């Protein structure tokens, strides 16, 4: 049992199980957020891509404005705006191929819209006529996820399943700086790395979790540094530089697609609006701070680049704005209609086959509705808001 009984067995060697594993150096993010716009690298950017991104950004900003306006008109229960974060939203959508999957958080309706989802369907959750307003399979967009970070393991599981089936599918999952503190963030990243699942995690670090600033959320050098502890690369990027975010995400998606495993991307950005229309941001941040970010607006950064490269003139700007206005007008019009409501839907999708118990409850509601209709036959259900 001891050396005195086993002479010569003493070896000042490292513990046998110890093998230096991954080299941590390549996993570490750069010290500064990666930027493209305004740098020399921007010169190599594809003009078509930049203009496409520009159109998305302009429409995205307008979309945020219109959705916020709809809350004031009582047409949305609540709206968590991504104004100021459009570069991340748009780049996330555009970095994916058609067969890939997007896992948005509750703030990421714009990413879903940029991926092709009808904005009315994207806003169903926030209007309140149903939860998920779309068939996730149609555009391969998971339900907008409200419990923070809980969608991240879903993305890992889906990507893993696709790989097991031999399908060429990458999942991109979005989460906020606050969400990185949740246990589900940790477990998802760990599973992804162990399984080498084709997933990209995009953290939009917009400085706040509602009122809580990043400094109270983490003491890490950056959120991207969390990647090292899972054995995946961490990338830090200027989240308002749409070209940079698009490039970093596209790289990460390609790496995942090629079997290189997951990547964690932290995009540094800022939430220009309050947390939601119901929030009072003056309680926890100054106008001055917001102002400093006005000078780093994602649309402005891209416009400057495009202008310098003579890709943007007043007519392009006007055309994009007009397109944005059309989108907004259409959205407004359609959101101003009362959605069709059927209270019996409460019981339709709880189980594949309705249980006897739910049938009974459905009958009760049906009888109540019939009685009410008799009492006031002129009020169709859809209009009772």
């Amino acid at each position, binding site marked *: 049992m001891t050396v005195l009984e086993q002479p010569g067995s003493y070896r000042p060697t490292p513990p046998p199980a110890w093998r230096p594993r991954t080299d941590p150096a390549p996993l570490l993010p750069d010290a500064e957020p990666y930027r493209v716009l305004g740098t020399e690298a921007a010169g190599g950017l594809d003009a078509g891509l930049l203009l496409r991104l520009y159109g998305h950004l302009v429409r995205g900003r307008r979309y945020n404005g219109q959705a916020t306006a709809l809350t004031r008109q009582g047409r949305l*229960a*609540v709206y968590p705006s991504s104004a100021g974060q459009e570069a991340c939203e748009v780049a996330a959508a555009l970095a994916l191929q058609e067969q890939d999957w997007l896992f948005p958080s*509750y703030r990421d309706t714009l990413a879903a819209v940029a991926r092709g989802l009808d904005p009315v369907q994207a806003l169903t*959750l*926030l*209007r*309140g*006529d*149903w*939860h998920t307003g779309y068939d996730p399979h149609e555009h391969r967009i998971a339900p907008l996820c*409200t*419990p*923070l970070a809980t969608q991240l393991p879903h993305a890992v599981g889906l990507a893993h399943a696709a790989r097991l089936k031999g399908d060429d599918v990458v999942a991109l999952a979005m989460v906020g700086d*606050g*969400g990185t*503190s*949740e*246990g*589900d963030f940790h477990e998802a990243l760990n599973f992804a790395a162990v399984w080498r699942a084709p997933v990209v995690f995009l953290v939009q670090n917009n400085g706040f*979790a*509602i*009122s*809580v600033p990043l400094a*109270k*959320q*983490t003491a890490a050098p950056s959120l991207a540094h969390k990647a090292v502890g899972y054995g995946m690369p961490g990338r830090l990027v200027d989240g308002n530089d749409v070209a940079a975010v698009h490039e970093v995400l596209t790289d990460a998606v390609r790496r995942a697609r090629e079997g290189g495993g997951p990547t964690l991307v932290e995009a540094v950005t800022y939430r220009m609006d309050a947390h939601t229309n119901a929030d*009072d941001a003056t*309680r*926890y941040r100054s106008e001055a701070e917001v102002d400093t970010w006005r000078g780093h607006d994602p649309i402005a950064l891209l416009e400057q680049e495009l202008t310098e490269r003579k890709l943007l003139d007043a007519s392009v700007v006007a055309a994009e704005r007009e397109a944005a206005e059309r989108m907004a007008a259409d959205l407004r019009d359609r959101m101003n209609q009362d*959605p069709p*409501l059927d*209270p019996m*839907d*409460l*019981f339709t999708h*709880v189980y594949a086959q309705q249980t006897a*118990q*739910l049938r009974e*409850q459905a009958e009760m*509601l049906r009888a*109540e*509705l019939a009685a009410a209709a008799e009492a006031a036959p002129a009020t169709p259900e859809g209009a009772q*808001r």
Partner: protein
Amino acid sequence: MTTAPVRAEARSASMAQALNRALRDAMAEDPSVHVLGEDVGALGGVFRVTDGLVKEFGEDRCTDTPLAEAGILGTAVGMAMYGLRPVVEMQFDAFAYPSFEQLISHVARMRNRTRGAMPMPLTIRVPYGGGIGGVEHHSDSSEAYYMATPGLHVVTPATVADAYGLLRAAIASDDPVVFLEPKRLYWSKAEWDPGTPEAVPGIGRAAVRRRGTSATLITYGPSLPVCMEAAEAATDEGWDLEVVDLRSLVPFDEETVCASVRRTGRAVIVHESTGFGGPGGEIAARITERCFHHLEAPVLRVAGFDIPYPPPMLERHHLPGVDRVLDAVARLQWEAES
């Protein structure tokens, strides 16, 4: 929403204000009381219940935590181990779920597993229930989970005065209390003098909110106003309903409830939580066990449907309303009497 401090004279106050005042008074009286949670500091909580506490007591006493509910409750357990009295805020009912392991495996059992050496004088404030137009995961009624976990107290106020009194009692308790705050009553107001708070007989006592003789409505939290309204409306039908507000689900005040049911001979339990596996089953079973021969009819339940909480535009069809309560009263086999 006004968040001005409540002054110490009888005036109109909302439930949120009374809760805020309870926290403030408890913190002022006892330096071991610490508030922690998401956005409880500068923001004052999303419902403003912790408004002003950070200014008055500093960040060490009222702490914005990282966004992690298991971490919040888990560190609160450690704080309680060291003799503090943490008051934890869960931002919404459904967002307490990540903390369930800490709750079930530690908070509820620590006293028992250490033979009393490590009590858990923790209060966990959970805004709960629907009726506020919240999107999914913002309107759950999760009291059944808490009731099924021995070692916890489960308390819920339905009035402004109880909000103050019960929260003070919860914080003063040497046992962990899950303090369920009915979201849709946060802005309900009442004349209330915090200087002489209406006597609240501590945790574990129900209150008879309306005396009656025909049948007993048993309810709590968000459904109390519904039951009071139903009781008024029932007089038109000739029913004189008694209304019992449980206030405390654990411990359960069998005495008050059974005394009422023995008097009236009929009972309807009303709550928002789903019916199947919800609190009403336990209450009905218990009443029936104890008062069987006093019952003229089976104890009935009016509850949320057995479905995930509906989207805002459909929630009114789900929530137990006055009509559904009256329908249940009508089914209490009155014909048997005549």
